[in-house]
């Protein structure tokens, strides 16, 4: 066991190292891409009254007159210590603006995950158990339809049914720090449901496929020949062996819950990172755009690392070496 623990620790360290490397590459790409954006902040902010002199003054104030390489390294150095710089828009620190927004986005993702993951895995298991039945087909069609529709469309349909025709949830999700948990949850519900509909299909279909894939295995036949009931065959004999692919898909979708919320947050005017991101792109507030991108990338990398570790832990051959 101790040998395995040490091996796992080494693996996690190695993956973290690779993750950091990836992040640095990503930071280069982000910085480069933002550089390539047409227009610049100074011109954007001055609008019609942009004289070359005024533009030059603002550029100097914000350090935009420095060479690209210098700016990249001073930004990267800051980012590594948690200092993402000062927002161009309102002169407040990026971290200060981003912090509460990111907390909101995490809350939304968490609510969506708490609904979608059990739902997807549960429906996936049931679909595998009653494969090719009406239930299976219905589950497949419903989830496929919801994943095939654009997010904003799903969002508006939900608003129509759950806010306009039956006023159960508010259609605007203006959460703020002063709200109690219940109200906050209520206001988060519609965006969370939209996200649920978007991510469930993928996870549910993978759960179903991973389980069905195993049903031809000799050990499943053995379980049946021991008189084990169909439900127990699926849950006890097939599911534990299907965990690795399911975990990976879940991680991918959780990452999407954080990085893919832009449209949903805009539709519901939810004060999360996505909103901020869109607003900042509009006004060329480069430090915020860069920080958002970096957070998104880090989320992907961390969730995938977690999935890898969990996949390994779900494999008894690796957990209990000879």
């Amino acid at each position, binding site marked *: 066991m101790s040998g395995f623990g040490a091996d796992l620790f080494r693996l996690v360290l190695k993956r973290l190292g690779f993750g950091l490397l990836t992040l640095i590459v990503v930071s280069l790409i982000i910085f480069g891409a933002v550089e390539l954006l047409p227009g610049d902040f100074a011109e954007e902010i001055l609008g019609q009254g942009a004289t070359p002199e005024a533009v030059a003054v603002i550029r100097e104030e914000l350090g935009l007159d420095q060479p690209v390489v210098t700016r990249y390294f001073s930004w990267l150095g800051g980012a590594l210590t948690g200092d993402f710089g000062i927002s161009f828009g309102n002169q407040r620190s990026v971290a200060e603006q981003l912090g509460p927004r990111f907390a909101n986005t995490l809350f939304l993702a968490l609510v969506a995950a708490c609904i979608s993951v059990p739902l997807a895995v549960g429906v996936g298991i049931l679909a595998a158990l009653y494969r090719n039945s009406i239930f299976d087909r219905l589950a497949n069609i419903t989830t496929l339809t919801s994943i095939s529709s654009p997010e904003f469309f799903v969002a508006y349909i939900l608003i129509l049914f759950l806010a306009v025709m039956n006023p159960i949830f508010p259609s605007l999700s203006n959460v703020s720090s002063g709200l109690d948990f219940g109200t906050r949850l209520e206001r988060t519900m519609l965006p969370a449901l939209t996200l649920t509909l978007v991510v469930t299909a993928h996870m549910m279909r993978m759960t179903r496929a991973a389980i069905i894939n195993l049903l031809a295995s*000799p050990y499943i036949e053995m*379980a049946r020949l021991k*008189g*084990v009931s169909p439900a127990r065959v699926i849950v006890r*004999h097939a599911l534990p062996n299907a965990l690795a692919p399911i975990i990976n898909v879940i991680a991918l979708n959780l990452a999407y819950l954080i990085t893919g919320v832009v449209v949903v947050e805009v539709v519901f005017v939810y004060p999360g990172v996505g909103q901020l991101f869109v607003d900042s792109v509009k006004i060329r507030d480069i430090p915020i755009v860069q920080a958002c991108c970096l957070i998104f990338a880090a989320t992907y990398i961390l969730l995938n690392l977690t999935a890898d570790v969990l996949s390994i832990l779900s494999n008894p*051959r690796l957990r209990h070496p000879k």
Partner: protein
Amino acid sequence: MSDDLLVKIRGLKIEGRSDDKWNEIVHGIDLDLHRGEVMGLIGESGAGKSTIGLAAMGFTRDGCRISEGTVEFDGIDLRKASASTRRDLLGKRIAYVAQSAAASFNPAHRIIDQHTEAPMIHKVMPVSESQQDAKDLYERLRLPDPENIGFRYPHQVSGGQLQRAMTAMAMSCRPDLIIFDEPTTALDVTTQIEVLAAIRDIVEQFNTAAIYITHDLAVVAQMADTIKVLLKGDEVEAADTRTMLSDPKEDYTKSLWAVRSFAPPPKPAIIASETPVISVKNISASYGIVPVLFDVSFDIHKGRTVAVVGESGSGKSTAARCITGLLPPSKGEILSNGIPLPGNYRKRNRDQLRQAQMIYQMADTALNPKVRISEIIGRPVQFYTGLTGTARRKRVEALLEQIELDPAEYYNRLPPELSGGQKQRIGIARALAAEPAFIICDEVTSALDQLVAEGILRLLDRLQRELDLAYMFITHDLATVRSIADEVVVMKSGKVVESGPKDEMFRPPHHPYTDLLLSSVPEMDPDWLTNLLHERGVENLGDAAAASM
């Protein structure tokens, strides 16, 4: 005697689904099994043995269905019974032991948890009691460390031990009937004997009835009270074991019995001064940092067969990989007609590559299913001999004739349109296409039925005499060795433990390991296992095997 009857099958017909229609694969079988009786079901692949065995449990695999007939277990009609009634019987009163325990134990759970599952769900005994019972059974089945072995995961236990643990699992509810579906086919001979003895003991102790499915006649002779011979879903004949062995009535049964008698005439002695076709000199090799071969040497002469025998993991196939250059040896060298060959096949020229060809165990996977026979054989013909166009076609046709397949019929076929034996023949033709002096045959008959395997052995023998070929014949089947080898190399743990002419090898005194291998090969005598166990000392069978290694 009717209340003594446990299984009563009448007119059983089973259909299998292929190409979108149902085809009958079992054509009306009757079967009676009494309490405590062990019946052997034997036949070649496709005979329907496993299908019938499973049907006796009221179970059919996906894509199969029982179309007619009745299956009664202790008076319960399994075809009419509800799914939950059948589930109540399965595991509790009827148990199953599968061919590959390694594949049939769930990798995600500990062995003992799988053992106690059936007693728990059938409410036969509480888990704690069942665990204690499992340990007792492990001890009776002579598993090492019976107290703790159950708390391991399946991958932590060897194949032979798992097979015994599976037998213990089948016993967990003390069933009335156990179906053994080729339980020792995947095991080495030395391991097989332990499992056979364990199964026989425990079935006797608990007076369990059993259906023992196998294609190995010598095994069934040890295990069964009665034997039923099957061919393509029909019963050929049935009788008690001794009658069946001494006095088979049907020609098909006689032909099965006769397979082991293939004995080609002996060849003249080797001329000592002649340079061997292939000479392996003090080869050592490793996979990564794991050493697998240690100082292996042997010679193979023109027109001779050297059989390399040993258990799985003994280094037989690794030695072959060294000769072909797939695994460059870390020490030693390989001489072809006295000239050293480069260790890595990439550094060998076309003529050196031509010298050593291979025929594989699984003809199924060794032939590309999407490539026609004409191309499978034609490509090496063109690559090694430079023939093209009509000349190439003529050569491929000649090769097909050599392997006794009609060119007109087979030239344009695809591998999936061939039987197992025919595929193996194509594998032979592909090796011959290079016009080699030496062919490595890696377990070429072990995936085939006995009659088909015999045909392949006869073909290889004929080709050897016609073309003066040298064979390296890798096998774990000593019956095959006895029939076709000229010399034998016995390997164990990557070393050669004994080598020499066949006649010497089969004559005592042997190296203790050779002795263990030889004495472990089941014989057709129904008293063979009993006598052998007696000789080795029944009580410490496992120890005897371990001590002599």
